[in-house]
């Protein structure tokens, strides 16, 4: 590169220089391009062309000289070449011959070569075919394997195989027809698998629907047994409390033997569900299966909850509820173990649907039930259902509410049944004191209800203060208490004692007391029977405390707490009032009876002319009756009642005699008749005095004795027999001797008082005496008349 500028500077110096330069360039064999290009670029190509032509002329001259110089050598050379040509031609002939010879010799080999090429081609084709067939064989092997799996109902490996075919081979299958067939059959096979799996699942649905009832029954049975153990434990605890001397640290252990059949029932098989769910997930339609499962199970549940129309609810409710329990136990297991097949909210909403339906059924059935034990039976099973399903996490508040809602209905039925029973007992009672001849009878009718007068078992036969109706009624009341507590057990979270107490009060007041009052007012009982009824009421009134303790005991309240409680039963006061009503009825009945005898007063000869030696007939009858009355009442009635009754009777007799004297029936009477009354009264007063002391009534500390009840008629008789009846007008004497007498009554009676003179042959002294009394009576009559 550095040489270039020098050469150019030489050319540019002049034309002679250019020619020399060119010649030098040519002799050196250098490239003339740049020089020529420069010449044309500079716009002066003529100079360059002339120089080049001159060089050409010089060279031609040199060539001609050179040719003349070397002419002979040239001719020799041509001869040589012609010789070579001839030799070459000879060689060519030889080669042709050799070639022909070679061809003859090698034709067989060439054929073999062609064959070889053909075979190479075949080999290539076969290789391709083999490659294709390998793929096809692989695919078909997989297809056969898949078919085998399907034939053996092994759908999971079948699906795996299908996936392998679809993802790994389908695009690469070289045979179009095979590819088409395989592509077509893959979805068909999947559909077949889906159908098969669904069919298997449907079989499981049929099976589990049948099993659900057994599952439910076994679970409920287990809950029932657990409850039974609870009850036994509680009963033992109550006995321990009842016998406080028993050892409190005594323990009873029982061996729980598991029922293998029940275990196998509760270990139901969910494999078909898992399998179906998994297969549907593999098929890519898991959601479809979940939806199918949920809908079909809901339909099954709705079918199962249809009430049987041919069977009474009392018989059909247990299978129905067991079926529902089993259904939800299965659902809970599926929820926990089937990995997303069910959602928590789905199970909850299904349960809400079911429990709403159950509560609706229960309300409908409870509303039409008319026997308390039926309602209790259903309630027990419902609470067992509640216990069972709550263990699996289901809410049972609605069930509890239904039961609570119908407690009034239940107790109303109990009250109706109890009323019927009590009415029957009262109607069939003989109202005679119960005679107990054997110890077991004593235990059953006396000890059981704490009616013992003391702790010592008495001599037999033992005469009880009550009739046979009383222990029967007590058994009904206790049964009522038990039934009431049974209704609330396992279904009430609050303390049920107050509620049970309320219903017990209703039983004792609305049923027992009403029935007793009906008997009191029915006027169908004789005197002794009425006394016994009153005595019975007394015993029943005292039993209220026993009933209350029994209620507390059944409600699980310790005895000492119950005893400490001050609130008792309202029924106690009500029965007390009824007792008084019975006593009043007794008094009325006694008085009514006495009236029957007092009618005999009408037969008394009020104008008898001689003083009688014997009492009037009516008084004999009355005294006989009173004797019987008191002796019977003494054995049955409490002293207070006895006092009331006899006092009432005495007062009634007094009033009857008084009324008779005041009535129009008696127009006049003589002093002799009054003397007869005096005899009657003396007898009655003696009776009253004797009974007052003999029965122990004196110990009551009453200010009024039985004789005091006769004071009015006694004072009247005393006045009429007095030698100076006019003293009645003296305030001091009247206050002391005639305080019970009424002015008007005395006036009426005195007006009827007539005295006849004795016979003309009477003694003078007697005559004088009578005259004096007559005058005094006349004075009294006048003064009473003036007074009024």
């Amino acid at each position: 590169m550095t040489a270039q500028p020098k050469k150019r500077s030489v050319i540019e110096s002049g034309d002679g220089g250019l020619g020399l330069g060119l010649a030098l360039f040519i002799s050196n064999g250098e490239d003339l391009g740049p020089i020529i290009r420069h010449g044309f670029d500079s716009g002066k190509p003529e100079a360059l062309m002339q120089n080049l032509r001159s060089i050409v002329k010089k060279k031609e001259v040199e060539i001609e000289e050179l040719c003349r110089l070397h002419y002979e050598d040239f001719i020799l050379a041509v001869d040589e070449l012609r010789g070579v040509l001839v030799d070459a031609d000879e060689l060519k002939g030889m080669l042709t011959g050799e070639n022909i010879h070679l061809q003859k010799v090698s034709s067989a080999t060439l054929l073999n070569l062609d064959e070889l090429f053909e075979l190479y081609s075949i080999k290539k084709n076969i290789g391709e075919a083999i490659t294709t067939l390998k793929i096809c064989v692989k695919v078909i092997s997989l297809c056969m394997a898949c078919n085998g799996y399907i034939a053996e109902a092994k759908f999971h490996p079948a699906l795996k195989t299908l996936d392998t075919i679809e993802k790994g081979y389908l695009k690469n299958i070289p045979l179009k027809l095979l590819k088409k067939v395989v592509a077509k059959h893959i979805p068909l096979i999947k559909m077949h698998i889906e159908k098969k799996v669904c069919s298997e699942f449907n079989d499981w649905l049929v099976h589990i629907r049948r099993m659900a009832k057994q599952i439910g029954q076994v679970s409920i049975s287990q809950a029932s047994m657990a409850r039974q153990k609870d009850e036994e434990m509680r009963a033992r605890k109550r006995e321990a409390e009842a016998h406080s001397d028993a050892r409190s640290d005594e323990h009873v252990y029982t061996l729980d033997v598991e029922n293998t059949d029940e275990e196998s029932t509760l270990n139901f098989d969910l494999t078909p569900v898992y399998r179906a769910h998994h297969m549907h997930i593999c098929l890519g339609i898991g959601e479809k299966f979940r939806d199918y499962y949920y809908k079909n199970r809901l339909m099954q549940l709705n079918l199962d909850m249809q009430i049987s129309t041919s069977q009474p609810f009392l018989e059909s409710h247990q299978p129905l509820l067991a079926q529902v329990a089993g259904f939800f136990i299965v659902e809970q297991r599926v929820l926990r173990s089937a990995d997303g097949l069910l959602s928590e909210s789905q199970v909850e909403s299904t349960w809400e649907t079911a429990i709403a339906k159950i509560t609706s059924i229960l309300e409908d059935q409870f509303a039409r039930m008319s026997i308390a034990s039926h309602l209790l039976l259903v309630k027990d099973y419902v609470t067992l259902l509640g216990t069972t399903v709550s263990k699996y996490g289901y809410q049972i508040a609605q069930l509890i509410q239904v039961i609570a809602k119908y407690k009034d209905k239940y107790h109303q039925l109990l009250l109706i049944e109890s009323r019927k029973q009590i009415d029957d007992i009262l109607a069939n009672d003989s109202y005679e004191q119960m005679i107990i001849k054997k110890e077991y009878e004593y235990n059953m009718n006396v000890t059981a209800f704490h009616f013992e007068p003391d702790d010592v078992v008495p001599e037999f036969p033992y005469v009880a203060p009550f009739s046979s109706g009383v222990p029967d009624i007590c058994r009904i009341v206790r049964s009522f208490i038990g039934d009431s507590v049974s209704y609330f057990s396992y279904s009430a979270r609050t303390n049920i004692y107050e509620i049970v107490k309320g219903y017990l009060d209703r039983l004792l007041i609305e049923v027992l007391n009403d029935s007793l009052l009906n008997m009191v007012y029915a006027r169908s009982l004789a005197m002794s029977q009425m006394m016994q009824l009153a005595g019975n009421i007394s015993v029943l009134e005292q039993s209220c405390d026993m009933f209350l303790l029994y209620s507390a005991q059944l409600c699980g309240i310790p005895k000492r707490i119950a005893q400490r409680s001050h609130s008792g039963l309202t029924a106690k006061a009500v029965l007390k009032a009824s007792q008084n009503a019975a006593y009043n009825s007794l008094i009325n009945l006694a008085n009514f009876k006495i009236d029957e005898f007092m009618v005999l007063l009408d037969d008394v000869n009020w104008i008898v002319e001689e003083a009688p030696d014997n009492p009037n007939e009516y008084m004999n009858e009355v005294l006989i009756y009173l004797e019987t009355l008191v002796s019977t009442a003494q054995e049955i009635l409490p002293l207070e009642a006895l006092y009331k009754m006899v006092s009432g009777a005495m007062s009634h007799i007094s009033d009857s005699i008084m009324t008779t004297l005041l009535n129009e029936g008696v127009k006049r009477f003589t002093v002799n008749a009054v003397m007869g009354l005096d005899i009657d009264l003396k007898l009655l007063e003696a009776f009253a005095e004797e009974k007052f002391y003999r029965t122990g009534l004196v110990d009551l500390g009453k200010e009024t004795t039985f004789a005091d009840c006769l004071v009015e008629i006694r004072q009247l008789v005393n006045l009429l027999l007095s030698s100076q009846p006019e003293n009645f007008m003296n305030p001091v004497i009247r206050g002391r001797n005639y305080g019970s007498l009424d002015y008007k009554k005395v006036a009426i009676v005195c007006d009827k008082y007539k005295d006849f003179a004795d016979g003309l042959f009477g003694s003078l002294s007697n005559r004088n005496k009578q005259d004096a009394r007559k005058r005094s009576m006349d004075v009294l009559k006048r003064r009473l008349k003036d007074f009024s």
Partner: protein
Amino acid sequence: MAHRVDNEYDYLFKIVLIGDSGVGKSNILSRFTRNEFCLESKSTIGVEFATRTLQIEGQTIKAQIWDTAGQERYRAITSAYYRGAVGALLVYDITKKQTFENIQRWLRELRDHADSNIVIMMVGNKSDLNHLRSVPEEDGQALAEKEGLSFLETSALEALNVEKAFQTILKDIHQIISKKALAAQEAAGSGPPTQGTTINVTDSAVNTKRGCCSS
């Protein structure tokens, strides 16, 4: 095979499908006559019918199947459609107990409106829904025996027993018709043999057409 002309048959038997709405009568019809099942539940309006010709004991029977609406409001127009029926399929749904309990009412309707010699088969459909069953198969069998009916459980969805149900009732009908035809023929045969006579079985009110004479 050579195509048969539509009127080339030995007997035309009219069969009625009755039962509560929704038990699947229409799908039983479509399964038997067209081998189709429709999943959509559309109520039949009034009456539909379809026919299918089949061979029973060497004779060509054309079955004309009448499908009716089970709903109450279509009852007025369905009483006429019993006319001329020689067979009836009494259909109930095994998943709905009420449809089974109503069979008695449908039987009364048949006996009130249809020929007293009608051949009756009781059909418990939807047997594919075994997991939702509310009528045990034994109950269906017991009622059928009590009433002197044939009984089958079918699934129109799965084409189970549908063909068999129709085959059974058509055979029963054919057997009865054949006996009557034979009796009529014997009565007519008291005279000298003839080329052939048309047997008029007016009792059954069945359209009888013979393809060829026999004597």
